[in-house]
């Protein structure tokens, strides 16, 4: 039981980090990026290829994260330009259609060029005992990285001037502009940040289980579930929802079977929406 819950927490922290990357882009740009999971997969594949061609793990991880950031910025500066000219539901809908197209293109390219590529990062340190459970070093390192990244995010959004400016755009874009905040600059920064988070998620995932080229849509759906349960645009909501869904995921795959996990996750998300339509920390319905 303890072991299952600990596994769930390890997974849930990563879900939270993944969800944050999607939710901040939605909060700031009004854009639902359905190619988000593919960003993580591209990061993973770049890491895998560069490592095979002799690059050390550290630089390879950096290369992978940079690739995800580059694609995120490319989207922001190209196909999302017309999206930003729309408002509200129009913007969400158009962004959703365009980015799902991008997701298919990336998936298609990967299947064509790298059909059997997958990233595994084997951490061969000794297992560590926590609460009487022997935890794999990979799981612990993944959790440590995620917690550090989460801490850095909270520090950024709570205390730095740029981070507060970003939150101000989420809460009231007109108010932010009247204070002298340039929403386009904030959006660029947040897209880059979402690329970093996707890349980090790929890294930590690969420490516990392989990341294949086909994982993109699974990641996107997980991120969407986290975002919806946590409340669109809420960072702490995303982490809490990630933890809840991670534990639900681990429990249901252990006690019931992994084939129904997705159904149970969706049911948990649906239940949350019925009880709290705007999510755990949603600002408004």
């Amino acid at each position, binding site marked *: 039981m303890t072991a299952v819950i600990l596994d769930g927490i390890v997974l849930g922290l990563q879900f939270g980090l993944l969800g944050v990357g999607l939710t901040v882009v939605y909060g700031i740009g009004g854009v639902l990026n359905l190619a988000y999971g593919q960003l993580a997969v591209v990061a993973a594949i770049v890491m895998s290829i560069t490592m095979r061609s002799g690059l050390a793990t550290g630089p390879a991880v950096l290369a992978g994260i940079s690739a995800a950031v580059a694609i995120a910025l490319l989207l922001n500066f190209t196909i999302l330009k017309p999206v930003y000219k729309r408002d509200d539901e129009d913007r969400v809908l158009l962004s959703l259609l365009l980015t799902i197209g991008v997701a298919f293109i990336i998936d298609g390219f990967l299947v064509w060029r790298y059909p059997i590529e997958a990233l595994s990062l084997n951490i061969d340190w000794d297992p560590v005992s926590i609460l009487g459970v022997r935890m794999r070093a990979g799981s612990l390192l993944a959790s440590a990285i995620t917690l550090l990244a989460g801490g850095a995010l909270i520090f950024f959004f709570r205390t730095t001037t740029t981070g507060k400016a970003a939150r101000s755009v989420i*809460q009231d874009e*007109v108010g932010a502009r009247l204070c002298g905040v340039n929403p386009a600059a904030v959006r660029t920064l947040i897209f880059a940040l979402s690329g970093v988070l996707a890349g980090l998620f790929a890294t930590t995932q690969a420490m516990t289980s392989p990341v294949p080229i086909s994982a993109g849509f699974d990641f996107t759906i997980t991120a969407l579930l986290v975002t919806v349960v946590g409340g669109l645009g809420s960072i702490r909501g995303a982490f809490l929802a990630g933890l809840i869904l991670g534990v639900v995921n681990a429990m249901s795959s252990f006690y019931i079977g992994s084939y129904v996990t997705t159904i149970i996750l969706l049911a948990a998300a649906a239940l949350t929406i019925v009880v709290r339509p705007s999510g755990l920390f949603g600002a408004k319905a």
Partner: protein
Amino acid sequence: MLEVSNLSAGYDAKAVVLDVSVNVREGEAVAIIGSNGAGKTTLLRAICGLLPVSSGNVQYAGTSITNLAVHEIARSGIAFVPAQRHLFPEMTVAENLALGAFPHRPDPDQHALVLDLFPRLAERRHQAAGTMSGGEQQMLAVGRALMANPQLLILDEPTTGLAPRLAAQAYESLAALRGQGMTILVAEQQVPLVLGIADRGYVLENGEIQLEGLASDLRGNPTVQRAYLGVV
């Protein structure tokens, strides 16, 4: 200081304000009065960059700011307090005020000046802006706008949603600001209040300037008295 010449603006190619010219000199308080739907908000939003100017020109401190981005106009020294206030509801009063100074760090002197004007904001500094009363939110909106030490303060209907006593208080603080030398442009339906602090005023009806003059003259004008001051 601010010179609006022959400005037209509106929504979807339909002009709401037409060929409007308004000027504000340094140290002046200028009122734009008019009934609901007269085009006051449209005029102010066009000046501040929130709506495109379809023709005409806005000059500020000798340079054209026509159709600049909102944040550029804000950084040039014009602070706009919209009627809806547009506060950051989940941030504390202190955080809202600090963002008013963006992209700079808040200046302690300016901060002290704002809290001096609105002592209530100091009491509420850790409270989320969205949970405050309408009157307090109005104070915060003005306070946030003042944090950047603006040269020109523009307000749209600062009495929106306020009880008469609070509306009068809002104008008392504007009078205090004016006493400190702040240049103010304010649109208002509550004409007696705004003419109490203004040096000059413009009457805007159906998107056009109908009348302009010294506040004292406007108060004595029969048309203004009939339409806005309740004199029969």
